[in-house]
């Protein structure tokens, strides 16, 4: 397993936001993370990213326990996160954004040509055809193109796990489709993808497995192929669906 969370818990003061969460993600698969507002999705992501320190449990990467105490640690382990509010600079062009903070240089001088070439190769390897001009400012791109740049920025570095937080929330139908195809390609190229979304149509279109959080607990992790949308909806809203899900759902441990 590339990433394995066992018994993860996190509290903010007296509030237990995550309790005893288990989740495993392997290379080459898209694992969707769903749950209602406040279920703990964002907190879980921030724990993996090292933004929040965990209060209990272990995070294993490649089968070994790792202490992730900051975004740098996460990046060193090959974990990259694409945030909902796209961290792109509107006034910089595509190449400049892709390499921001990790510019290539020859001596003192920026090696813009090498960066442009590497950017072109990365976009090509992702089969991105929607961005023609790598030297146009990001401000002039559409929402889907911007999301594409943000994702490409995450895979440009030797990343192995890409976490996407609501990447299609603000996109139209066609652009959502482009981004979903891109997510699928990431997995097909051997990356692990943790995909957070509210939109179950998108989730079923792209995910191999679906993990449902309910009030900070992992209700179920199911194969998308053997699951129906209504089951997932029940898991999201009540924490259980038939024989699936939590045994008791009032927040008390059995």
């Amino acid at each position: 397993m590339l990433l394995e969370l066992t018994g993860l818990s996190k509290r903010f003061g007296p509030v237990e936001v995550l309790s005893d969460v288990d989740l495993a993600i392997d290379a080459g698969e898209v694992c969707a993370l769903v749950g209602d507002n406040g279920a703990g999705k964002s907190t879980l992501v921030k724990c993996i990213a090292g933004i929040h320190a965990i209060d209990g449990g272990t995070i294993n990467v490649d089968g070994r326990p790792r202490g992730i105490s900051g975004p740098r640690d996460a990046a060193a382990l090959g974990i990259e996160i694409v945030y909902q509010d796209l961290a792109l600079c509107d006034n910089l062009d595509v190449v400049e954004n892709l390499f921001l903070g990790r510019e290539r240089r020859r001596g003192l001088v920026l090696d813009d040509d090498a960066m442009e070439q590497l950017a072109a190769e990365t976009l090509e390897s992702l089969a991105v055809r929607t961005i023609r001009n790598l030297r146009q400012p990001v401000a002039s791109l559409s929402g889907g193109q911007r999301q594409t740049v943000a994702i490409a920025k995450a895979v440009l570095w030797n990343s192995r796990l890409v976490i996407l937080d609501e990447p299609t929330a603000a996109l139209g139908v066609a652009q959502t489709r482009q981004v979903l195809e891109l997510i699928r390609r990431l997995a097909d190229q051997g990356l692990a993808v943790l995909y957070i979304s509210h939109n179950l149509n998108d989730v079923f279109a792209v995910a191999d497995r679906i993990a449902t959080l309910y009030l900070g607990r992992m209700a179920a992790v199911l194969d998308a192929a053997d699951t129906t949308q209504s089951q997932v909806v029940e898991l999201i809203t009540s924490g259980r669906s038939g024989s699936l899900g939590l045994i008791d759902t009032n927040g008390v441990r059995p």
Partner: protein
Amino acid sequence: MSTPVHLKEDRPEAATEPGPARAIALHLKGYWNEVRSGEVGALPAVAGIIALCAFFGFSQPVFLSVGNLANLFGQGAAVACIAMGLVFVLVIGEIDLSAGFASGVCAAIMAVILTDWGWPWPIGIGAALATGMLIGLVLGTLVVKLGIPSFVVTLAAFLAFQGVVLMILKEGTNITINDETVKAVAGGNLERWQGWALLVLTVAAYAALQLQRWRRRVERSLVHEPLAVVLARIGALAALLTGTVFLFNLERSANPQIISLTGVPVVVVLLGALFAVWTFVLHRTRFGRHLYAVGGNHEAAVRAGVAVDRVRIGAFVICSGMAAVGGIVAASRAASVDPNTGGSNVLLLSVGAAVIGGASLFGGKGTVRAALLGGAVVAIINNGMGLMGLSAGVRFGVTGAVLLLAAGVDAMSRGRGKLFGRH
């Protein structure tokens, strides 16, 4: 890299190389499209310079004389230097209201060292520059580390430096500068042959850089400009500089028998050198890239691991350092320093110059070229209206109107940009 990398043998852009004339036409068309979509760049400032020159040249023929042209550079140099520095703080979305009086403080310190103490010029100029950078370090630290808005910090400094100048100059006396080297900064001229030599060196260096860059991009099969465009640009620079050196090498003294006045003014070379250095810093170094990133999206810069605090403080250091250069130039031109050096409207004209040239007060946008072009507009208005015999009142009014016009163009290009999906 876990993603396989495919090297594409040939790109369609490289495969279909159009003929030179067609290539240039396509290039111009691309530029025009950019302008239409709101990327006006230097266009308004250049158009303004041409229109102003035509107007003043028509109404006051002496305006276009070589003597006046040289004069124009001397008059505008101090403001242009300060404006170049201001571009750095404008790019990160801050402002420095104290740059004018910072230049006054630095000039006053230099004057005391040179004239009162009689020390050699390298110490005087060095002390002025060091003072400027120290001022920038303090201002930047206050803004960045304590989080006080730059408007407030530099407004306080604006008031305080006014007092510092008075104290250094002992309640408003005037210190004369006698050092010939310092006076030559704004008043000296190169020998004729030095002008030509500099021209050859500059064009050769520019051509080498451009051609090397073009070749690298071809080798990497990246999208590149047609060679004709690169050559045309080198040719344009060569023609422009040849014309400039030729004009400045003409005799421009009113009484050539008594005193001969020829050669490229030193201050023109200084402005050119500063332009080259700061353009390099802004566009070819990591620091420059990070300045734009901080100005464009502070949060994104932080997440990308940019050392945001250092970058922001660096911008203030450069700004105040350039203010010191402006102070030296102003002191050199007047051959003296008084409490008004760097005072009155110097700061406002400098900010105006940067904005007229295309820097944005909202951050993320601005070039050194903008400061020079805007400085030229401001200098031409002052010089031309002075020649027309108009009062200072009218000059202020017109400069204000031009600044408003420039800000309007900026706002409109912003609006147009929105239409095309920018900002």
